[in-house]
């Protein structure tokens, strides 16, 4: 992973929910910052302990710098830096509206529209879509050497890339066009007035007007956002970007990881940067002692009994380690020569303190 961490401008971490994407994203970002790079990690749903550890705030409108004491403790030195930001789909949509409407008054009118406030929370793929929009903004700004994006937990990780198409379908859909009629001749205008009359009867004039305001105001914004997303899809194919598939030993997560790699190539023509097998027993040291080695006449009966029970658990761990190594070999075969593949160790208690975050970063890029 060293080459990816040191050379890419964007790293996108994808995977099923619960595989540890957020922790891996944070550790990748830390590893890059320690190499002297200016790094931003965009997280989706950090655990409270990780958020407290890294000073991540959901309420922050701008990226937050990692606390000074934590930078020192984790080995980040200038010019390296690490900023974090929590993705808030509503805030990103609001920022896009302010940037893309013609006047502040028009922006405030749209932002205050009840339909807008509800729809932006309900549009399927909004979280994935706004992740792409956020990435577009930061890449254009050039404030960071590397942006690590922790994608939303999705049953299908490809939703992240499919969201622009789904939004385009929404814009081009019949319901949308009912409220945003294209310009036309006299017959068309007459027909539009008739549609308005029918809608007034069904919805009430105020609701119909609010819906029309929303669709007419938001259509232009949505078209520009979709254009940004399409630009990003092209950018994703460049050598500056790596997609990493984070998976765990669980069968469903693995199935999704393989499916994701195949679809990334065939549907989007994007090569996979690598697989990261998280929480893997394959990382356990081979030379660890066995509990039975500690049973002797000097130990108490209680401790000997405990060691015998631990020996049974140890034998189970041996079996799990063999399975984990076989699984890693399977992933390496799938990765082939083009993609990287590595396993990360199980971190007891999860990534909740400096030591565990550094341990994960060390496993990704050996210092």
């Amino acid at each position, binding site marked *: 992973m060293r080459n990816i961490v040191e050379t890419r401008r964007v790293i996108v971490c994808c995977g099923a929910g619960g595989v540890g994407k957020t922790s891996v994203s944070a550790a990748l970002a830390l590893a890059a910052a320690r190499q002297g790079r200016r790094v931003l990690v965009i997280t989706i749903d950090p655990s409270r302990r990780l958020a407290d550890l890294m000073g991540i705030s959901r309420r922050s409108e701008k990226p937050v710098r990692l606390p000074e004491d934590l930078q020192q403790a984790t080995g980040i030195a200038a010019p390296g830096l690490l900023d974090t930001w929590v993705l808030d789909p509503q805030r990103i949509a609001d920022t896009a509206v302010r940037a893309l409407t013609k006047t502040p008054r028009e922006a405030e009118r749209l932002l205050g529209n009840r339909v807008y406030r509800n729809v932006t929370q309900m549009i399927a793929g909004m979280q994935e879509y706004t992740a792409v929009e956020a990435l577009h903004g930061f890449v254009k700004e050039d404030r960071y050497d590397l942006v690590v994006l922790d994608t939303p937990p999705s049953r299908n990780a490809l939703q992240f890339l499919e969201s622009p198409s789904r939004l385009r379908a929404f814009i081009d859909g019949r319901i949308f066009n009912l409220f945003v009629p294209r310009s036309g001749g006299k017959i068309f205008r007459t027909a539009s007035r008739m549609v308005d009359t029918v809608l007034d009867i069904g919805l009430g004039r105020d609701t119909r007007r609010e819906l029309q305001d929303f669709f007419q105001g938001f259509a232009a914004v949505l078209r520009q956002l979709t254009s940004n997303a399409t630009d990003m899809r092209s950018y994703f194919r460049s050598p500056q970007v790596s997609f990493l598939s984070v998976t765990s030993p669980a069968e469903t997560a693995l199935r999704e990881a393989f499916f994701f790699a195949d679809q990334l190539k065939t549907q989007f023509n994007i090569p996979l940067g690598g697989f990261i097998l998280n929480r893997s027993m394959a990382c356990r040291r081979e030379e660890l002692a066995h509990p039975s080695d*500690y049973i002797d006449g000097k130990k108490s009966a209680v*401790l000997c*009994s405990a060691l015998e029970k631990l020996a049974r658990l140890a034998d189970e*761990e041996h079996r799990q380690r063999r399975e984990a190594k076989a699984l890693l070999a399977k992933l390496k075969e799938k990765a082939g020569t083009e993609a990287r593949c590595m396993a990360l160790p199980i971190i007891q208690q999860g990534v909740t303190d400096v030591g565990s975050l550094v341990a994960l970063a060390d496993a990704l890029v050996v210092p």
Partner: protein
Amino acid sequence: MHIGGMILNRMPRDPFSVEERADLGALLKSNSMIGELSFWRLASCRDAHTTLVSSTNLHIRQIPDIARQGPELVNAMVANLAPLVADHA
């Protein structure tokens, strides 16, 4: 909405007595050996269970960690949950 209860899935069975846990824990703090990951995981699961029990009045049904896949896993879980369904019938 009424919540009938909670199901705590993948709760590993703890084979150690309180004394065994204390003595072994002390040994493992300065001696690394295979099996220790499972031992510390038991401790985490115990703490999580305690937190859960102390924060709710709901009935909590535990399903053990079943090291099987496919139909065997399903059958084992059904056997575990059947009494719960019978109680609510």
